[in-house]
């Protein structure tokens, strides 16, 4: 049975290389660093695949008011922890796009548009997208990102969505791809490979 797509944000600003989305979500639905998402582009002809590299909890006056109160009630604290939607901003690196021909591991022809929905990629979609590791060079070449930590998190998660029997082979192959990218920097490669270990 296919999973229901989880709306995690709406696009607020974007470029071909990356996009940023904002939303208010329950804590359980806040996406994780290194997970994949998708946003509609080209009037629905394609979907940009994003890799979440930053999650910010935005300013919230109500939470601040309760934080500084002398003696907030347990119910108010619980409300803010459990029920209130958390205002978040997520930043996503474009690592590919999907079209009728399948996935392409390159920058998309067009970015998503303002207020387009951003959905989390389902486990099946993550498995399908990471059948190829061709998105890895795009992560390494993105300036100003914690590329090693981002890749480690993303590859670990991509392994977890696979059957147990395939996880080790997937991570070994991921290590090989990273080794090719970091051939001249053994110390960095060593750190990254250690982070890949489950």
């Amino acid at each position, binding site marked *: 049975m296919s999973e229901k797509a989880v709306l995690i944000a*709406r696009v607020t600003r974007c470029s071909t290389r990356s996009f940023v989305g904002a939303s208010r979500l329950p804590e359980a639905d806040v996406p994780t660093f290194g997970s994949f998402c998708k946003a509609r582009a080209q009037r629905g002809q394609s979907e940009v695949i994003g890799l979440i590299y930053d999650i910010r909890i935005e300013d919230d006056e*109500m939470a601040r*008011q*309760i934080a500084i*109160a002398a*003696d*907030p*009630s*347990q*119910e*108010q604290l*619980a*409300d803010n*922890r*459990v*029920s*209130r939607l958390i205002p978040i901003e997520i930043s996503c690196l474009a690592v590919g796009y999907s079209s009728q021909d399948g996935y392409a591991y390159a920058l998309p022809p067009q970015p998503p548009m*303002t*207020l387009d*929905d951003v959905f989390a990629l389902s486990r099946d979609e993550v498995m399908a997208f990471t059948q190829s590791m061709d998105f890895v060079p795009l992560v390494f070449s993105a300036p100003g990102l914690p590329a090693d930590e981002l890749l480690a998190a993303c590859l670990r998660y991509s392994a977890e969505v696979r059957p147990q029997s395939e996880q080790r082979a997937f991570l070994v192959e991921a290590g090989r791809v990273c080794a090719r990218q970091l051939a001249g920097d053994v110390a960095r490669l060593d750190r990254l490979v250690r982070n890949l270990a489950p």
Partner: protein
Amino acid sequence: MSLDIPQLIPQLQGMAQSAAEQAAELERLLPKAEQALDSCAMIEAQELMDKILRAGSRWRGARPTDESINTIFPPPELPDSFTVIGADGSQIFTDRHALALYFLINIGSIVVAHGSGEAPLVASHPELFYEQQDLYPEMMGLISSALVSGKRDAAEMAELARLSESARSQPTLALLDNGLLLWITTQELDQPTAQVEIIKSDYLRGMQAIRDTGAALGGYIDRPRTSNVLRLLHLAELPLEAINDETLRVHPYQHLTDRMLFARRLPPGHRSSRFELLPSNQDFSRAGHSIQFFYLHTGTQDQIARVEVPGWVAENSKLLDLTHAGILEECRVTGMPYVLARAHELAVVSQSDRQALERALNTLLLERGIRSEISQKELAKRWVRSGQRPSRRSSLP
């Protein structure tokens, strides 16, 4: 930003100067008003009632109740556990420039079980109205904003009633972020009467349902600008034979508000005595829900709120105390009832929500072969909203 602030500076200076002068004048009047409150409390009840009767049905003053009008009441004890429910509504009005004709009402609500330590129950119930009978009630043209607001008010009361039913087991306070008199019934508007009657009937049914559960009901008005009590003080100062429309219309306290008066009288947490609201109370009285009100110092930064309660709460000391103490507890952290702040948050329909709704609608229309577009005017407004640039307009000399 298109507003030319530098051009407005001289006017802003004038406005600030005027506000300072007015504040000094009001400060001078307040001791007189306080004195009038104490004097009015000394007048025989029958004498005051005679004056109120003479003022007639159009007079918008307050009628005293069984509590002496200058008495103040300290915060009552709270039960160890009690429930507070808040509901608030938001709407999208019909818009002829939009993708399609519809209106939407969204009701946010929250139930806080004080003393449980548990997270409150929260809900948001949106309802879309698009059928011809919704849009064109009584064939009198497109539904007005006032009628949509009336429907929203009735939906808020219905939600409080629904939630009060599920909280029967312990003391419960249901709160609205507004006065309890249905706004649309207080307006002399050219509205389809049958529609107003339906809304009023739904609203009163909700009030009755809350009463039947044993819960208290209160309407919370933040920063009220009313002066019903000051009108009473002026009336009390007039000789009976001098009472007429002209002498009632102009009075020495007309730029003061009851809030200013009671800000000087009420210590934190205390409430004023109760008053009955005149004159727009007849329908509610007939249905057993005459409205009374009191002023309450909410305990934070000299905040004086007006709290409206039905007679069946006002005259039941347990329910009245729960309303008084429950509101204070709710205001302790947020300065206004927490449940109302949260209900508003759950109800509010933002501009981006509206755009998302219309995108979804557009997709569904296209799937059915209907190509619909917003008007050119609305489109142009969105262009400038999405990328406002500094104006190049030069200021007039």
